[in-house]
């Protein structure tokens, strides 16, 4: 045992935490953001997460980018991991590490529409997978340096094709730029839910060394108000559920995203600096104070 527990939280409050997402029952609305929960850390979070969501997997293994891959910024960090992953085959072989008795959502990406379709089909056909999250913030090699989020056209196409592969819930994860239009076209193409938002394009420079440090995506509390705006607007545009991602640090942040319109809320970078259990405990206390259940929060703010 340890000397002092960090911010002891008192007894569980008995608040009603369960939410429904695309027909799945999540016993809490909190989900790890893709790429921020390793298989080694899954155990730590038992009981906290309503679903498990591992790092994006791709058709072939990827080594990822050279270091430095991360840099700290004011209230956030910039990462450029480069989707390092062992490829979908090895990933599926190790999938049991992520089975902890809650729904398993698998994040996928590909370089082309074709690849996306294949990888969606591949993971969705596995009985252990409850839903698929398509990470569209990755480069579409058939369209130069642009990502699949570059516009409603490419979103539509890739989602429509993926849709043919499965009846399981298909969650489309979008970046901030053009999120409202992109969400609408994802819905039109058959998406079952939208995750908003991925990291925001950013850069860090080391002034002393006079060199570029990391060119990648900004995450963490810094981006919270931007993500909140995206969730608010997307949830007022589409009829499908919205999963929030971006800057959640506290239980009150979770509540704000749900009030803005989210059905479930991802915690990413904050899990590097806090125990997600504390976030959940704060959220429970919030629910108790306001006398509401988790699902009653969704979209409650005008």
């Amino acid at each position: 045992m340890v000397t002092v527990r960090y911010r002891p939280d008192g007894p569980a409050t008995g608040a009603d935490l369960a939410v429904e997402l695309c027909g799945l029952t999540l016993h809490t609305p909190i989900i790890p953001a893709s790429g921020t929960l390793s298989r080694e850390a899954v155990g730590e979070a038992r009981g906290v997460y309503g679903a498990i969501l591992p790092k994006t997997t791709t058709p072939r293994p990827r080594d990822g980018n050279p270091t430095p891959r991360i840099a700290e910024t004011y209230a956030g960090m910039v990462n450029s991991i480069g989707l390092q992953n062992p490829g979908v085959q090895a990933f599926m072989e190790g999938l049991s590490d992520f089975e902890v008795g809650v729904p398993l959502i698998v994040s996928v990406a590909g370089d082309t529409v074709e690849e996306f379709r294949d990888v969606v089909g591949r993971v969705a056909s596995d009985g252990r997978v409850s839903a698929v999250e398509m990470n569209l913030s990755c480069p579409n090699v058939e369209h130069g340096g642009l990502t699949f989020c570059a516009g409603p056209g490419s979103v539509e196409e890739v989602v429509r094709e993926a849709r043919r592969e499965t009846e399981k819930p298909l969650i489309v994860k979008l970046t901030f730029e053009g999120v409202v239009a992109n969400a609408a076209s994802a819905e039109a193409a058959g998406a079952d839910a939208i995750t908003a938002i991925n990291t925001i394009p950013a850069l860090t420079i080391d002034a002393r060394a006079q060199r570029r440090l990391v060119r990648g995506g900004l995450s963490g509390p810094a981006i919270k108000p931007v993500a909140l705006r995206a969730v608010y607007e997307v949830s007022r545009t589409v009829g499908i559920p919205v999963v929030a991602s971006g800057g959640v640090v506290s239980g009150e942040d979770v509540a704000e995203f749900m009030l803005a319109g989210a059905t479930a809320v991802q915690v990413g970078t904050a899990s590097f600096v806090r125990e997600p259990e504390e976030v959940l405990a704060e959220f429970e206390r919030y629910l108790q104070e306001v006398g509401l259940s988790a699902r009653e929060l969704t979209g409650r703010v005008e």
Partner: protein
Amino acid sequence: MKFYRVEVTNAERLGGYRVLRYAWSGPEPEPGQFVMARANGFPVTLDPFLARPLSFYDFADATASLLYEVRGRGTERLAAARPGDTVEVSAPLGVPFDLSDLAGARAALLGGGIGVAPFRFLSRRLLELGVAHDTYLGFADAELAGAAEGFPGARVATMDGSAGVRGTVLDAVEAAGGIGRYAALYACGPNPMLAAVKLAAPPQVRCQLSVEERMGCGNGSCNGCVVPVKDRGYVRSCVEGPVFEAEKLAW
């Protein structure tokens, strides 16, 4: 990642570095392991945002010690903690030095700069195990070399020759009889030093290197802290390291 708010029992200078001690009754650390550490904040400090990896300098009597260099804001804020204040640390993390197969062997511990940190603890453990070993520490100058006080019996080199042997930690090894007589090497320091140790190590000598990469999480989740390994692309140094067999590293 779980952080524990622990009470600082001691905070002092050691040469150009600082020592911070805190009471710890959680899982026992092993030499070569580290903690993620940071100052307090609410709900977490944003100044700075991420915690910092620091090796165990020692662990005894339910007291953990860290030895660190003030480089930037993270260590600056830790350095502001006084006895009685609290700081936040994770449980012990990472793969420790492998101390198996050492029966009858003689080991060398090679630390460069603040990379000396893990070797007080490792030396203590080797003593307990009855493994003969020598500790070599390399510093920039005599001021920093003041930290050698924390490493009883260690031999010192300084780049400017102001204390001990002039040159690197490998020069100190050379001056004391050469690297050939050791069956095991443990090294920690800047990457160029680790590469030099790897190069200098005779083929039959088992060589373990503790690497230093920027860390985001410390528990394998962010993939930020990778090192290139032979035939396997990159591996995460926080969970598959920070201690690696030298021959596994692709550098």
